[in-house]
């Protein structure tokens, strides 16, 4: 079997070298490849070098990071532990003890437990059931499990770190072996936690895991997904980014590209092939008297746009059904537009019901189009993953509550462990500058910050940056500040040089990104004079319009508007004002 092999683009070779190697290795037989592997390893050994890129090894060692939290400190530490451990080559799972079955600890492999104490030496409220189960008779034996406990507390309480102590003692009592001594940390826990985690993880880490690069050699890149042949990516993380108190919901989705050969650059978009809401499909089939033919339901769910209603469709439906009343309405321009406003197919079928055949109906419909989502990650940091930031589109029109086809599916129906059909839509016009020296100014509101998360991850990975300036907008600082904790870290580490925020609904007067731009116009001009590249992402209808108007005023700098317009156009044609608005 000589299957085409593709080295990943990230392999440490020039493109033409990769091509050459692909040819050789691709054509090579199993035996030949085995020999080659041995030969290369032997070669390095002979020259006393560490192989810098060992061949992909077997499954990674399992590590379970448990946390018990009330106010989130333990959880934040758990996340840090995950990053660290992943670097060391563990297959890490992070779990709130509130969501774990004690029995499952049996085969957890290695456990790092980060436990906070509350009340008067009580466990955090949500952790109480876990503690009861763990302390009870029914608790499983943990022979063969390795563990280490990090206890968070406040030494001004009588029972300092009590809950951490209990877990530590109980794990041992159940037969688990202590991999590192428990550490009890006070309110100023950060530094202590960091060193403890690093040392503990290193003692647990498998020999050479650190340098293992996990590459899937079986999926040729030539088959990388496309609109017509999307890749079913597993959803490895799916959670809200906005508070329960937020007026609208935005979710964070992590997709695994493992085995797809898909690669992307920050600034690209991920195309997602949606499916219609089964409930809507059922409703439409009922209204159109289509019975419930499974095959038809399938095509209506996956292949046709059963929401959007166009003038043409209205006319066609009138013609097909010979409905005189509808025809009258459809042919009168004014009446038609009025009817169409905010209405969808289900409204039409409801007000003008007619018995249709499946084929007749689908002939009226448009194909279900993919939706695009700015990729909110950088492969240099997340490897074979793509992250999305998706706002749930919910509104009501013509007296009905509506939900966006794709965003509704993503927020309401997709879950961790499920999958989504995706492909990449490269966007070469929305990339970081070639030179790390070029200052960047990133303007975005709402989900418009998504691509900038990709940019910042890229800057973090490449160690460039610090001159980056972000101007982000949201409704409420407390409820919709997307990726707040990550942005704080980027500011601390200097990946992000400066941040300005506009919260539109936190004070009596509305405040948007263009207001920040105007307040900071001196600084903006200064950076543009220094050759900065300007980025704008997010809502096209309002934000982009207002930002352009403001930029024009700023660039006019006292002169008349056309001067400002000219200056702005100059920036655009010089590729120094990049937009990705929708």
């Amino acid at each position, binding site marked *: 079997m000589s299957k085409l092999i593709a080295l990943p683009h990230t392999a440490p070779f020039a493109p033409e070298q990769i091509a050459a190697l692909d040819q050789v290795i691709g054509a090579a037989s199993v035996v030949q490849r085995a020999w080659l592997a041995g030969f290369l390893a032997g070669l390095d050994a002979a020259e006393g070098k560490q192989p810098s890129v060992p061949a992909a090894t077997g499954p990674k060692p399992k590590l379970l990071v448990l946390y018990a939290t009330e106010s989130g400190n333990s959880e934040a530490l758990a996340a840090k532990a995950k990053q660290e451990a992943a670097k060391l080559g563990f297959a890490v799972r992070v779990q709130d003890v509130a969501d774990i079955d004690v029995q499952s600890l049996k085969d957890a492999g290695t456990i790092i437990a980060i436990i906070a104490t509350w009340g008067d030496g009580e466990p955090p409220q949500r952790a109480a059931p876990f503690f009861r189960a763990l302390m009870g008779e029914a608790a499983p034996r943990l022979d063969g499990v390795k563990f280490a406990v990090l206890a968070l507390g406040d030494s001004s309480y009588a029972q300092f770190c009590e809950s951490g102590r209990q877990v530590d003692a109980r794990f041992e009592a159940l037969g688990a072996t202590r991999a590192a001594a428990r550490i009890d940390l006070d309110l100023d826990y950060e530094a202590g936690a960091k060193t403890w985690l690093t040392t503990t993880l290193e003692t647990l880490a498998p020999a050479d895991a650190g340098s293992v690069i996990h590459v899937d050699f079986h999926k040729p890149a030539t088959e990388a997904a496309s609109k017509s042949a999307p890749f079913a990516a597993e959803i490895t993380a799916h959670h809200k980014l*906005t508070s329960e108190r937020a007026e609208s919901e935005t979710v964070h989705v992590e997709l695994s590209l493992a085995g797809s050969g898909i690669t992307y650059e920050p600034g690209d978009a991920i195309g997602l092939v949606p499916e219609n809401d089964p409930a809507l499909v059922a409703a439409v089939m009922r209204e159109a008297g289509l019975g419930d033919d499974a095959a038809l339901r399938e095509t209506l769910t996956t292949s046709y746009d059963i929401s959007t209603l166009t003038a043409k469709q209205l006319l066609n439906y009138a013609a097909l059904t010979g409905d005189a009343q509808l025809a009258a309405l459809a042919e009168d321009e004014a009446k038609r537009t009025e009817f169409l406003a905010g209405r969808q197919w289900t409204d039409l079928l409801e007000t003008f019901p007619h018995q249709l055949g499946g084929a007749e109906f689908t002939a009226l419909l448009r194909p279900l189009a993919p939706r695009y989502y700015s990729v909110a990650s950088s492969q240099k940091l997340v490897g074979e993953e793509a992250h999305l930031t998706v706002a749930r589109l919910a509104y009501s029109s013509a007296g009905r509550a509506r939900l966006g086809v794709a965003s509704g599916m993503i927020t309401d129906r997709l879950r961790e462990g499920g999958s989504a059909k995706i492909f990449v839509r490269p966007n070469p016009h929305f990339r970081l500058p070639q030179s790390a020296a070029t200052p960047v100014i990133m303007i975005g509101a709402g989900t418009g910050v998504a691509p900038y998360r990709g940019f910042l991850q890229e800057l973090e990975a490449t160690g460039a940056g610090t001159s980056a300036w972000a101007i982000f907008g949201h409704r409420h600082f407390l409820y919709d500040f997307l990726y707040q904790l990550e942005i704080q870290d980027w500011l601390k580490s200097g990946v992000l040089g400066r941040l300005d925020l506009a919260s539109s609904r936190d004070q009596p007067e509305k405040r948007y990104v263009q207001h920040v731009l105007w307040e900071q116009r001196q600084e903006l001009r200064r950076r543009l004079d220094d050759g900065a590249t300007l980025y704008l992402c997010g809502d096209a209808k309002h934000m982009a319009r207002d930002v352009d108007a403001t930029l024009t005023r700023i660039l006019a700098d006292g002169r008349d508007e056309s001067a400002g317009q000219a200056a702005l156009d100059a920036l655009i044609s010089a590729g120094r004002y990049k937009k990705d608005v929708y």
Partner: protein
Amino acid sequence: MTDKTNETPKLSHNETIKTNSRFLRGTLAEGLGEVASGAISEDDQQLIKFHGIYLQDDRDLRPERAKRKLDKAYSFMARLRVPGGVLSREQYLAMDKLSDDRGNQTLRITTRQSIQFHGVIKTNLRPALRQIDSVLLDTIAACGDVNRNVMCTPNEFAGRAYAQAEQTARDISTHLLPQSGAWREIFINNEKVTEALEAEPIYGATYLPRKFKIAVAVPPQNDVDVFAHDLSYIAIVENGDVVGYNVLIGGGMGATHGDAETFPRVGEVIGFCTKESAVAVAEAVVTTQRDYGNRMNRRRARLKYTIADLGLDFIVREVNARLKVKLEPARDYKFAGNGDRMGWHTSEDGRHHLTLFVENGRVANVGAWQLKAALKQIAETLDVAFILTPNQNIIVAKADDAARAKIEKILADHGVTLRGSVLREAAIACVALPTCALALTDAERYLPSLITKLDALLAEHGLDQQPITVRMTGCPNGCARPYLAEIGFVGRNPGRYNLHLGGNVDGSRLNRLYREDADEETILATLAPLFADYAQTRQNGEGFGDFVIRQGIV
């Protein structure tokens, strides 16, 4: 909760913070400029208290935050300095608007006759304080290791003696006000005044070891709970005029579960001073505490512990040594009770004053109950003043006959009834969850439903007209002065309270712990038989607190 309890003779960290703060500036200005975080640095969190402001986070939201990559839901709580709780209608209106524009749309009347604004996020803090400044109010020293808001029995519009007592309260407040210009510099002008380091004549550069609290009472009311404060004054009134005050020192409520070193304590009368020397006495007691208070361990830094450690005689000698006019022997006084006088009262000048029941001090609009809107309309349309009471109620003061009628109509139109049940009207609860960082469980959000159940119990025994003081706090710090209540609930764990019994009507006796860590079921099951017994065997006019003591129940 940054300070640790330890006996090592090392200055508590807060002392270093104060020393290095350049008179309460620290890095507050810089911190307010950091937009990515709603918080400020740990040290600045201690400093900002001196300016009447606390950093808090919404504890209801804690579970969701980190998972969503959101920082804790930080916001600030700001507390007014308003001696005796007296506000003009213009000032009240400004506060009402402020809570809508910059806060959480509610006003919270406190147990020290002040108003707290919750939910003020960083970007709104300066605008909020400027709104306060614009009506000649401030939040200076409403918190921190200084003299706090000075309490005084209302109301100055109801008689000469009250007005004179209120004047004493204001004089003391002004005299003990920190001189640092930091508040105006940081929050109002937002520009550095050239480092003209002011001296703090009374406090010195490190201020007091801990908070310091003063109250002035006009008998027969002890509504300000004179026995609960570091320093209190009991007005001695002769034919309508205040001639002077009995002086009490060493009261305090706060304690820590499982720490015997800490305890609530009732103040003791140490003598009498003329009304002219009242301010001098305040300075003498404050400076004594400044010089002898414990600066190593903040949990034992209040005057009550200085007295416990050095002895009352020593402290009284120190105080007298600092006085030109020495303290005289105390005069007789008599208190009737420590609640507010609810409902309408008419003073000799024929003006009407309504003490309006505000459950747990929360002025808000909830469904058909539109108290906040009602008070707003009253302030907009009628010539009245507002006085915040020591039991979290509000007095609409100095209304003429016409205004009185209008007030009743406006309240009725907004679904506000003047009175609650006897038990409910006297009950108070601290804020606790979700804003209080120290809360172990709910208080303000829970007490109302418990009162309903207790009322039912009392009714069974025909006790529903019997006044009984009930006070609840979400932790042992005692913000609602629970240890002076006939029935006190002190938060221990989520949904669980220590049950204290045996306070007396005039608030001069500490109650005692009767049941630990009781949930609602236990609370009701415990009180039911006691109420039954009380209904049967109480003596004529005997209060519930006195009854449980006489019966040796506690």
